[in-house]
């Protein structure tokens, strides 16, 4: 089921976060990258924050084989 809310996607590393940001920008989606740390992510890592439909963004990343850690809304 699709939803329209914005959200955060935890990426495995800064490399994947930046690759995702560039890919999304090429498709007209803007996103910010922010460092996060905490036990829920088992790490220090980078989130991309998207203001678009997060399901669409997730599908774009998946279609382009960009690895993600998890979704956080």
């Amino acid at each position, binding site marked *: 089921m699709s939803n329209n809310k914005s959200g955060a996607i935890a990426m495995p*590393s*800064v*490399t994947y976060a930046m690759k995702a940001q560039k890919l999304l920008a090429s498709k007209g989606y803007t996103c910010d990258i922010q460092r996060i740390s905490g*036990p829920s992510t*088992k*790490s*220090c890592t980078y989130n991309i924050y998207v203001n678009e439909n997060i399901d669409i963004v997730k599908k774009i990343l998946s279609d382009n084989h960009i690895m993600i850690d998890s979704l956080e809304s």
Partner: protein
Amino acid sequence: MGRINSNACNFRTNNSRRHNKPIVVNFDNAATSFPKPIGVKTAVMDVLTKYGGNTGRGGHNLAMMTSTMVYNSRQVVADFFGAESENVVFTCNCTHALNLAIKGMVGSSGHVIISSLEHNSVSRPVVALSKTGRVKYSIAKVYNDDERTLQSFKDLITHETKAIICTIASNVTGQILPYKEIGEICKAKNICFIADGAQACGVIPISLSDGINILCTAGHKGLYGTTGTGLLISDGRYDITPIMQGGTGSASLSLEQPSFLPDSLESGTINIVGVASIKAGIEFIKNKTIERISKHEHMLCNKFISNLSSDERVVIYRNSNVNYVPIVSFNIEGMKPEEVATYLNRNGFCLRAGFHCACLAHQSLETDYGTVRLAPSVFNTENEIMKITSVIKNINKKL
């Protein structure tokens, strides 16, 4: 090609003429290229003055600016070699990349094939693995006929063969191996192809689409980056087990090394200055084009050979049926290679003599004392070739 020098750091003017020191001409670019393009110098200075953070280690502005620069460099490398950016691993040098690839991919068992022209950066890790007792290796003889060379690889493949590991071009003679065909063999046999591109990258348009699964190369030779740089570029098909573990800036609460590239193979802070230099070096190459660079360097090599063709004491290690990168190995009968190099050095020319860290290649060439190697870069000139060949012609008369 008269204006191709305009992008070089003007080391001769700044360092030599101003201080009345002899002009130095570098023909040892196969060891490391010098001078570097101006853009490389600028990129290095930019890191030292702007990109003061660590990549992937923090969210503050300096760290993010640096991470962005490093990612952009990764992307430039990936585009240049037909890879995905996350599969580009920055290493200390080509030897480091080859050790990661060979030991990480082959592991503790199986069979690998190398060529008879390998640099020690391939042969030594392979021999070291074989000392464990469970990894076996074979050496495929390289001929002046590509078909015979390919057959020698094919004949050595067994059901245990995990990888063919070979240079794209010999660092001693410059001979180009039939690497695309070797890639096809590997693909057909489901064998990993690990290619050493140290002497090829920058003068041949190498791509993973040539059938290479893991490309290892230096950043400081034909790519014009700074020393202390190398690249491992994978197509992602074969797992590479890290031989070193540590901080990666990711998965920090796990005691195990991340399993994903590039982090799995990039423990510890990478050479950020060097990464910036590789990006600038590749942009320089893209601007000049590989075709122009290669044409210029081949012209210099051909001029060198033709100028010395009438001197019967000069032995050139080339064969008319073979393709070469712009490297010329030679000897002068009656003189040891180091004596020739010393004489040339006294006359302002820097060339490497000896065995060039390539035990197998010199065994193949049967060169008891090695060779002298001329390896021009894009910044060398026809006039410099005329001068060095003149000096070589006069060696016999002066000794």
